């Protein structure tokens, strides 16, 4: 039996329903990207704020975000319009992006183990690393590929509320003059920090270059809104962290875990401490799984068949297990990321030009 009016609207409605599902996938995809971006910013702040590589993150976010966004848009448009992702150039670009994502995963795992080591000093790093990787393993399963983006979407409000709770709980201890000594360090320091942070940003934006579900302009705009919120949240976190901490705290050469948890260690309170610690760890886990799953997705595209998680599991734990490797990666990370991003953009651009040339002939 056909319901009244069903025959006239069924086709249109099925298309609309399909569009809706694609929109959902895209929104989830962007929410996960925003969370990855935020995690990278938080880790970046852990390095930058403590003079590991330079100067405050919020400054560099404001200064150098625009050029990187420009690069992203150019690459994205080129890849979408010309459809060169299937060719050799596109596959090489995917390998470069995989390297970026592997770096993200390594940093996330390193940050996670650092936080766990900070709150559980008696536990062995290798054991923590192994357990963490086992924990993220189910979320990388191909059949559950939609689970992680959905989880990110589910987590966004608790994340914002939790951050709000932890920030508001500590804000009364902050002082405005904590912000200024950092800003007056001179151009060289500012630029080096800015370079580090902007490459962090660009690395976090790379997941967007991966094939996204087909979508309309409106859905895409909503996705960009998610990214902007992730970015703003990162900047706000960096500002609040700097606002809370007295200057002399920043000069201490502490471990990454200590640095990441320092803003709440300055003035601990039960709820804000618990919420911040748990959210930070959850964020790092999401970031780790997101980087790994997208990296594996890229590799699968390059090889043309599903790639097991074993390969990534061999490469990811290295920095978490060795502080020396971690330090080398952190110091060289900006350059590696920049090379990967520029290489991707160049490859995609060359592929596009070559295709246009062939079309003219």
């Amino acid at each position, binding site marked *: 039996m056909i319901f009244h009016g069903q025959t006239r609207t069924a086709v249109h409605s099925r298309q609309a329903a399909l569009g809706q599902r694609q929109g959902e996938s895209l929104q*989830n995809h962007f929410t996960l990207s925003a969370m990855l971006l935020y995690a990278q910013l938080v880790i970046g702040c852990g390095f930058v704020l403590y003079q590991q590589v330079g100067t405050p993150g919020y400054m560099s976010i404001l200064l150098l975000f625009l050029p990187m966004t420009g690069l992203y848009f150019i690459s994205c448009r080129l890849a979408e319009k010309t459809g060169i992702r299937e060719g050799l150039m596109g596959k090489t670009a995917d390998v470069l992006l995989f390297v970026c994502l592997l770096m993200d995963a390594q940093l996330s795992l390193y940050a996670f183990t650092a936080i766990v080591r900070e709150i*559980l000093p008696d536990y062995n790093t290798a054991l923590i690393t192994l357990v963490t990787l086992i924990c993220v393993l189910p979320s990388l399963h191909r059949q559950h590929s939609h689970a992680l*983006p*959905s*989880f990110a979407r589910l987590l966004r409000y608790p994340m914002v509320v939790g951050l709000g709770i932890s920030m508001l709980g500590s804000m009364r201890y902050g002082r405005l003059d904590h912000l200024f000594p950092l800003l007056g360090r001179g151009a060289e320091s500012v630029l080096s920090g800015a370079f580090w942070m902007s490459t962090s940003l660009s690395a976090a934006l790379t997941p967007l270059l991966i094939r996204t579900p087909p979508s309309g302009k409106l859905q895409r705009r909503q996705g960009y809104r998610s990214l902007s919120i992730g970015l703003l949240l990162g900047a706000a976190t960096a500002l609040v962290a700097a606002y809370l901490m007295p200057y002399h705290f920043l000069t201490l050469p502490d471990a990454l875990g200590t640095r990441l948890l320092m803003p709440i260690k300055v003035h601990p309170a*039960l709820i804000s401490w618990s919420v911040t*610690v*748990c959210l930070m*760890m959850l964020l790092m886990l999401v970031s780790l799984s997101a980087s790994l799953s997208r990296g594996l997705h890229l590799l699968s595209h390059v090889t043309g068949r599903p790639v097991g998680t074993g390969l990534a599991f061999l490469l990811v734990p290295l920095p978490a297990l060795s502080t020396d490797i971690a330090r080398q990666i952190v110091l060289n990370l900006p350059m590696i990321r920049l090379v990967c991003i520029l290489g991707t953009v160049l490859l995609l651009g060359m592929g596009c030009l070559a295709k246009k040339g062939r079309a003219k002939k």
Partner: protein
Amino acid sequence: MNDKTLGKSYEKNKSLIENAVQAQKNEDMKIRPFRMAGKQAAYVFIDGMVDLTRVQLFVMDPCMDVKELPPDEELSDFITGQVLRLASVEVTTSLDNVLMRICQGDGALIVDGMEGAVIGEVKGYSRRSIGQPVNETVIMGPHEGFCETMRDNVVLIRRLMRTPKLISEAVTVGDQTPMRVSLMYLNGVAPRETVDEIRRRIQGCRVDYVSSIGMLGQLLEDNPYALVPQTLITERPDRAVSFLLEGQVVILMENAPLALVMPVGLLHHYHAPDDTSMRWQYGTFLRLLRMAGMLIALFLPAVYVALTVFHPEGMSLSLLTSVLESQSKVPLSLFPSMLLMLLAFSLINEAGARVPGAMGASLSIVGGIILGQAVVVADLFSPLLIVVVAISGLGIYAVPSYPLTLALRIAQLMLVVLAGLAGYAGIVMGTFLLLTRLCSLTSLHFPYFSPLAPGRPANPDAIIRMPVWRQRLRGYTANAFRMNRAVGPMRAWDKEDKQ
């Protein structure tokens, strides 16, 4: 004609049925032979399953009063059209069909020369009358619950929803003992794919017997190894109707005083039946309370263990002193104490559900005095730990879905174990594993966390409950082109209503 088919011969048909029902051994299986205008006939039924008065008045008397019979070819039409005074009659040649209908409480008439048998509906077995729902009580709402008779349950729903678009499809499940199942849905509102898929799954169940609707639910759900239920069971017809309006399918089964609803998400288990009956402020307040209860039930014991055992630095000095003082006299460490207390609490719950009514008071004494007071006096458990377990227990009781409370209890125990092993890190890892797994679940291909993740168009009726006139959409489970519940303003009389 094969052996399983009834023919024209009275003797052969009678013998087939006699052998199939084992009439020599089955003392309640009755085969009543008689003469119908000189021809041999018999009426087959199960004593106690049929209404004997109806059989006498509307089957036997009219048959025996027949003076003349038409030719054999017209015999079945004559009997169904002019002799039997029953509302529902059917002619069949399938022996299996005849046996199934007899077992369901109907009677079969065989007449010499008539091909097959005439089955008439004369059910008259004793049944429970419609009573109040036992486990889904509400403060504001109807007080009728389903009973064991499927036909009555269908009527209960039809009475609440008087529209020809309400479809009740009959399906059977079970190979050895087929059970009648009714698929109820609102035509046009429930997606056709959903109905087809449920029908396909029910027909694809290869079991000898389905004993309960809970068993049927387990056979139908997408992820049988998942911790949480992917079907919903209700004993309230009004709730079943609310699901039908959302485009879901309600499954009723013979002998089950419950209805199975598919597809469902986590939020369906979180909503209580009378949420909509209340004003939106009260409904929202109760839902937030429920949500807080769920979170407390899930995390409070684990957080308490993690804070006390691994992260005392997170606590203020006064709180830490109080916790350590209360724990200092207890011989057991906190982690095993918590596990034992949670298990004891679950044990009391289970015993409470199984204990006969007259012994309920004894259980209260055991639970309240012995476990509650004596263990504190004997310094077996710290008072603070008992407070934590009691509050988390209250949180569990606030959840309206019983299967979900069981899932919460298991998850609670798992998180306590992880917290006892690795503090907050364990809790976070456990939560990550649990939530990513839940996000990967589906119920009939609908994501389990919809409409939250992935975000789908839905009423402002997920976590909180906004006013009814703002609930203009059906659920995400409804047909995509029948999403709107109302056209124009719902409060059309209110000129200033902005909606």
